């Protein structure tokens, strides 16, 4: 079965209030973010995504 477009999902009373791209685009779950680990890293002064477990010697989060 074809995926519904965003406008079909929204089913608004007044379609003319929305951009036309809403009628063209369909669901795409391939874009769902993979579950990556987030940790705080002093080296980067930030919370970062950890792509691999314990990459670059960054300590794993405390249990």
């Amino acid at each position, binding site marked *: 079965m074809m995926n519904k477009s*965003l406008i079909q*999902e*929204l089913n608004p009373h007044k*379609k*003319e*209030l*929305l*951009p*036309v*791209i*809403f*009628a*063209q*685009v*369909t*669901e*795409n*779950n*391939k*874009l*769902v973010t993979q579950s990556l680990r*987030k940790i*705080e*890293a*002093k*080296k*980067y*002064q*930030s*919370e*970062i*995504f950890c792509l691999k477990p314990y990459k670059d010697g960054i300590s794993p989060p405390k249990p």
Partner: protein
Amino acid sequence: MILILSTTHDDDTNVVMEHLANMGESCIRINDVDLFNGTTKIYYKISSSTSLTVENKLFGSVDLSQVRVVWYRKWGNFNKYKDLLDQNISNEMFQYLHSEYYGILKTILYFLNDKKWINHHSKINRLNKIEMLTIANNIGLKIPSTVIANNFDTENKDWITKAVNEGAVISHNQKKFPLMTVEYNNSTVSFFPSLFQQHIYKEYELRIFHLNGKNYPMAVFSQNDEQTSVDFRNYNQNKPNRFVPYQLPEDLNHKICQLMKACHMDTGSIDVIKGVDGKYYFLEINPSGQFRMTSYHCNYNLHYEMAKELKKMNDE
């Protein structure tokens, strides 16, 4: 001191910081969302001797008057802040918070106005897609036919539609809808004004990273995969597109440098299509696009180049 205005989880910032650390350069990073979730404290005193101090357990307390160079990397992602809020906030509250969020960021940018910048905020924030296309056209770059309309009959030609401002992924009913570039089928009703462009059938597309007068081009062979033929960002993870270094014709190379200068951009990623008609079509510039893809596939070492540029500006 070098200041990087970035956001959490931006790996390009991480890698540039590694190079700066190896060079012994003093650098701090302020993530947009960290100012609003309590991670980074801010104290901005407006008086005859205005001062702005930021404090964070990862870099300590820093008086921003010490900053000499600012890299305006990727700052102002409201969605990261929005995701922390209660889902049931009213539209009025949402609009108020949205306005205050950008109001606060603007005051910080104002304080830093006179520093040396890679991509000065005042130049970047005022540019839009249509202005870029107009400048590119005036310089002599070929652009696809472009129309903004709220009622559009394509007369059987192939057109695509995309955001006038920035694409996004919209979640609705726990489903995700990527609002990137899509083919347009004639609509029978009027709609909210939208951007349309002639669909250019491509031989391949180019992603060109630009840094202070130098281009680093990469060709992306996305045309033969139905999933990536209209927008290569619909990545096919099972059978990835081929990415290879590319040598631009001298005329195109020169015009892209001219365009970046005319747009007052020191760095950015430029999208170009090589059409099946053999012509190059300019699409847009993304001033804060990811560049690790271009760097790693083509062995350009762009994070090192960026770090060198920041160091040079800081030493001058």
